[in-house]
Structures are given as C-alpha cells and as structure tokens.
C-alpha cells in the first residue's frame, strides 16, 4: 500500500504501470473485491458525474437562490467564440460550476473528494475529453488517478473544510484533477506529481468561509477556479516544469496550514466572506436570523 506520493510514483515506475493501475490493484487487494467489480463501481460514479453536469448545463437554481445558472451563462459565452482564454479551460470551468450548482440545489452528485469540491474533477475530465477523445475505460482511469492522489492527501493531511479549510477540499480536488489530466494526456507518473504539487501550492491558505454556512458562495466559484488552476498546472507539468518543493512536502504544508487556521475560517460561517456585511445580510435574509446566534432551539 502506498503511503505517500513518492511511494506511489516509485511503484508506478518500478512496475512500469500507470498510477491509475496501481490504484486499481490496491483497491482489489485491500477490499477483496474483483477487478471487474471495482471498475464497475467507478463506472457508476462516472455516470453520476455525467448526469450532474448535464443537469447543471440545463440550468438549476438552489433553494436559497444564491447560486445557479452560471454554467449556462458560460456555455453561451463560449458559443459566441470571442473569449479571451481558451475553449477547453472555459469548458472545464463551466462543467465544474454545473456540478456544484446541482450540488447546491441538493441534487445527486459524486463527492470528489467532497461534495463542496465535487465540480473540479468531473469538470476538467469532461472538458479534456473533447480534446483527447478518451475511451470510457480511460475516463474511468482518470478517476482512479485522481483517487490515488486524493487518497494520499486524505491520509496524510485532510480533505475536510472543517478541519483544513478550502485548501483541503477544492485545493485537494484541483491537485487530484491536474494529476489525472497529465496521465490522460500521456505524461509520466512524475509529471502527474508535479502537476499536483504546482496546483496545491497555489491553493495553500485558502479558507473555508461559506456565506450562511451554505455550500454555495464562494464554493461554486472556487470550484471554477480550482478547475482552471488544474488545467494550467497540468499544461505546465506537461511542458516539463517541475515544483521545487516535492509534492509530499506541499501536502504536509497544506496540513500544517490547516491546523493553524482559526476555527472562524474552517467551515463555521463566522469569518471571511461569511462575515462581510453582504454575507451577513444574505444570511439574515435566508434564515431570518443570523447564524452567529447559538442559542438552543427545540
């Protein structure tokens, strides 16, 4: 069983296998499930992701009315053709937003690694799909590669906003996605690790400050930027750029930053954007009373 990214890369290189394959083999060994069963379970998760993106691209609105419809706006903008960045990156952003808008509307999603960060991995996957034309099997492999890196983060740091801030959720998701994009594009296991490191470095310190405690503002747009970050970092790694700080040390830094983050900035809706005048006003409007009030109610 690999305990860190260095061991994961070493296993992939010495056995001349892809990271996704190492993850599949470990899953079979640890759970006692057959390979076919493991692949079928991931296939089902992929289907849930496809359905969520499809639903989000038709347009949804959350119960609170705070989020929804941005994925549609971005798709229409892409169709016009005069965007400034690139089609693949904007498509990834739009599909990440679509997933999180469905999540905010209490729709069905697949947590990757969490629900609040569920947009990044599928968003980038379905955007890169247009460019690389992967088989269904390769798309499933994308999820195993993401899972392998997420597995290391979850066991050595955290994937919980309440424990480690948004860096632990969208930061981890973006790193996982970047690594998986690199593998799908034909990069080496080491380049996957570089992409993960570059992405996560640029998410360090990101706090979890949801307005009104809802997984909406700023979560949906953080997934958008997580997807963009992953796409750019993947291109950088494929260009041969490396991270001066090794991936495992970046993950460790993320963990320590999370531990020193005050509780007000770890999913308590007490600091950051949640505590801005507009954040508080939205909260009061949605719930009638501000959430800072902790009086017991029956």
């Amino acid at each position, binding site marked *: 069983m690999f305990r860190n990214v260095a061991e994961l890369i070493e296993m992939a290189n010495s056995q001349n296998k892809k990271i996704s394959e190492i993850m599949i083999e470990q899953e079979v060994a640890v759970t006692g499930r057959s390979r076919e069963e493991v692949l079928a379970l991931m296939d089902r998760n992929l289907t849930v992701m496809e359905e969520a993106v499809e639903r989000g691209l038709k347009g949804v609105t959350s119960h609170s009315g705070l989020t929804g419809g941005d994925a549609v706006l971005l798709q229409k903008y892409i169709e016009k053709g005069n965007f400034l960045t690139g089609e693949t990156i904007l498509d990834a952003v739009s599909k990440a937003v679509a997933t999180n808008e469905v*999540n905010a509307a209490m729709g069905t999603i*697949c947590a990757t690694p969490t629900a609040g960060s569920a947009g990044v991995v599928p968003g980038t996957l379905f955007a890169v799909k247009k460019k690389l034309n992967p088989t269904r099997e390769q798309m499933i492999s994308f999820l195993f590669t993401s899972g392998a890196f997420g597995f290391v983060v979850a066991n050595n740091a955290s994937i919980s906003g*309440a424990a480690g801030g948004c860096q632990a959720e969208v930061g981890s998701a973006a790193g996982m996605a970047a690594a998986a994009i690199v593998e799908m594009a034909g990069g080496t296991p080491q380049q996957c690790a570089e992409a993960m490191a570059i992405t996560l470095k640029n998410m360090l310190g990101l706090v979890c400050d949801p307005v009104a405690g809802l997984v909406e503002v700023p979560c949906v747009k953080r997934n958008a930027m997580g997807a963009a970050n992953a796409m750019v970092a993947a291109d950088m790694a494929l260009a041969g750029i490396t991270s001066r700080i090794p991936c495992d040390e970046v993950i460790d830094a993320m963990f320590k930053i999370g531990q020193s983050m005050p509780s007000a900035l770890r999913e308590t809706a007490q600091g950051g954007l949640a505590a801005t005048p507009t954040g508080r006003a939205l909260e009061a409007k949605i719930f009638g009373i501000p959430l800072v009030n902790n009086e017991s109610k029956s």
Partner: protein
Amino acid sequence: MKYRSVFDIIGPVMIGPSSSHTAGAARIGRVARSLFGREPKWANISLYGSFAKTYKGHGTDVAIVGGLLDFETDDVRIINAIDIAKEKGIKLRFIEEDAVTDHPNTARIIIGDHNGELELVGISIGGGKIEVTELNGFELKLSGNHPAILVVHNDRFGAIASVANILAKYEINIGHMEVSRKEQGKLALMTIEVDQNINDNILIELEELPNILKVTKIVD
C-alpha cells in the same frame, strides 16, 4: 490510515450539498438507526462545532433524520426527511451545543421508543467518512483503518467465543477486539476490527447466536 478505499475519495454518490455535513451526517444517523434496530419514536440530536454553526445551510438536520429513517446517502427522500419523520409521528429535537469537542463535526444522537433508548456520538471526518466514538456510554476506540462491527450482547460466558467461531468459519481474521460492560451480567459491547470484509449474511448469522442482541457494521 483513516481512508482505505479509493471510493472514500471518489464517492460517495450522494444528495448535496456537503459530504461531511450531509452525507456523513446521514451515515451517523443510519448507524444509530441500525444499532437501535427499529424506527425510533423520538430523537434528541445535539450538534457541536461546525455542525452546530452551519447545520441549516448544509441540511445536516434533515440528513441525520434521513439516516434515522434508514435512507442511504443518495436517497432523494433525504431532502424531505424531517417532514417524513413528522408525518410518522417521530418527535425531533435539535440542540446547538457550545461545548468544544475533539472534532469540529460532532453529533450526539439519543433515540428511543417505549422499549428502550440508544445514545451514540459520531464524527464526520471528511468526504462522507464517519467514525463512531461513543455508544451508550461505552467509549469506542476504533482506528477506522479496518472493517469493523459492533456486537451488543448479554454479558454471559461463551458469547465472545461464539462470535469468534463464526468469524473463524468464514476465514475472517480479527485484528483488534475490545469488550466492555457497565455492570457484570448485564449489557456488554464487543468492538471487533477485522481484516476482511464481512458480508450481510454473516451479520445475520452472528445475530442469531444466543445472547447476541444486535450486530452492526460500522466501518466498511
């Protein structure tokens, strides 16, 4: 290692919006329901830390109640769980606690009916994964690294051996085991961590043993 499976990371399939505050909360409720063994008539649910501060926005309250109604994390009925519980005549009480707990996402659930009560403390550690830290006043020390089952039993000779024999029959190795009781000859609890997955048919077989009251899988 707290996370063993890739499906802890890519998964669960769930109703939004939060894996820790919605899916994890539903799982804590469902473990309580499963250990209680039937639908409760009432539930007092205490929320701590981030759970207490943000439960309305995350639907933590509806999710826990959904779990108490035996709904899975991807069951759309979770959205209306509180209304469904009220229709069934289940009395619900939510308490926002100020006390600081070891983990920010902690819930204490006390459920009951005219035949009995159950008290459980669960924490949601991220990505939908949960740990049960306390059951009916018994402190549980589960690593969370291995599949685990809880066996509520009468404190009688032979109870432990009979459970171990069934596990041996299915070639399931026990990695760690704790037995605790509050009073000699009364209710006791076995916490068993094993190396292999335990199928539902084995749980049923264990439950049919003499002096075994309830068997529940708490870690997959």
